[in-house]
């Protein structure tokens, strides 16, 4: 189990790497979305805003509705952000789920795989 602070810390690390990755920035063009992260074991909920080809800092869930909802265990979120977990593997096994419009799911799926491979 990963606590809130660890997820914030891991996300900050992941965010920095993503925002410096030119391929990811290309893939984020024209795609501004609100993504909610829901940790199934702790019940913690977070918000990530993607705007202008950039990932914003992690925040607690605000009232705004999400375009995409990602559910996983807190441990998997932390491992994902530390770059230790292949998101494609967990999505394939059903341990990570993505809910949203089909194109949004495809985009998040692709960008998370690239973030893992390109580190």
């Amino acid at each position, binding site marked *: 189990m990963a606590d809130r602070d660890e997820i914030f810390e891991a996300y900050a690390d992941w965010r920095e790497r993503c925002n410096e990755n030119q*391929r990811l920035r*290309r*893939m984020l063009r024209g795609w501004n979305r609100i993504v909610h992260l829901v940790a199934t074991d702790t019940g913690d909920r977070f918000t990530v805003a993607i705007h202008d080809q950039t990932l914003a800092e992690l925040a607690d869930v605000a009232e705004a509705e999400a375009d995409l909802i990602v559910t996983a265990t807190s441990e998997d979120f932390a491992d994902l952000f530390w770059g230790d977990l*292949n*998101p*494609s*593997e967990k*999505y*394939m*096994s*059903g341990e990570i789920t*993505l809910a949203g419009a*089909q*194109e949004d799911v*495809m*985009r998040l*799926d*692709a*960008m998370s*795989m*690239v973030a893992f*491979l*390109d580190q």
Partner: protein
Amino acid sequence: MLRASATGHPPIAQYERIPWVTGADDGTRWRLKDRACEALIIGAGYAGLSAARELADAGVDVMVVEARDRVGGRVWTTTTPTGAVIDHGGQWIGPGQDLFQKLADECGASTFPTFTTGEGVEWRAGNRATYAGLIPTSDPGAAADGIEAIFELDLASGQVPLDAPWDAPEARALDEQTLGSWLSASVGSAGARDIVTAAVKSIFGTEPGELSLLFTLFYLRSGGGLMNLARTTNGAQERRFAGGAQQCARYLAEELGHRVLLSSPVTAVAYDDDGVVATVAAHRPEGDPEPITIRARRLIVAMPPALSVRLQWTPPLPGRRDQLCMRAPMGSMTKIHAVYERPFWREDGLNGQVVSDEGAVRVTFDDSPADASHGVLLGFVAGDECRALDGCTPAERGAAAVSDFTRYFGPQAAHPVEVVEQHWPAEPYTRGGPVAVFSPGLLTGFGPALRDPIGPVHWAGTETATQWCGYIDGALSSGVRAAGEVLAALGR
């Protein structure tokens, strides 16, 4: 559900009491009876059966003629002598295939998840590695390039209108390119091109250089994107049918009863504004088939485009329809299943999936039953590899596949209990698979002729679908659409 028609024809059910083989037996030959109906459907695959059900439900006197001795078309399930249930053609159902799911629920067909636990095997440049997730990762840079290429294709596909791909922005420029030329120009890494090529070959049964880029983008969008089409879990290969994928076609055929004539290929169709007369080499319980005619006010042709022009049409079909069909050859695909006493690769932590750049079989899946009472490996032999083995015997193709399985999964794979293959290019009433391949220039030059009726003749088949083109779900929706056209024409 099946009601008498409103036009004075007896309902088909009454035909059951009229012997199919009629006339006095003079000791030398039997005479068959010509037939008439309101709507005739050629082809008892999922498209034709779906159209027939719609029409029968609306009270139309409908008949379906099928060349093979079975229904299902490109979906065909058999049970091997050792009891393995084998799908020789279409076999999966995934999220978003709502029509197929509804039908499966209705006929009580149970499904189970495609086996995905463990790692896949990557064979590249003579080296074997394992990988987790969707895409081989031995070269992470190539894998990332491959994902970006898939992403760009999926993004571009969003611009293609599904009901009129020829109206897409830059449609002509896209239709002048092939997927292969796009890959060469846009994807720098050879490894990334290989990843996309492997996925595309298993989906279309053809080489990327043969696919119009516009058609590729249309097809991807109609199935929710290449990422979706390549995926097992959360994608088009998510679930399989415990009793095989043909069972829902059998269910539809049983419901239609004597409306479906098997082993009765149509050889010719004459048509005018009032209707059609089809010449059918009708099956007889004994002796050679005998030509009969079936008259109908409307005809639905539920065959792949390339096969539909092998019928003798009088008058000849308009040029645009015939020329469209000339540009839509079938893909080249062989499915080979090897049955083992148990799914031994699972004991090595493998999920049975392979992506390879060498051999006849370059993509595999674990096709074992849900209870894993025995193991089944499915190998796709697609595109150039399929063509290279066309002159071989089934045993030779099977041996080539087993040799590949052994390279990927180790020496235990060398000793299958049995090997079953289906070489679709040799199947006389499909001549390839899994789907028609639209060549450059087809959609922009001839696109509307794909579905436009010609007099009393309407077109169905998965190639005419706007959602899930090339899939069973698309076949079903194409039948519903064509039946709707016929109902409107009949004033129902």
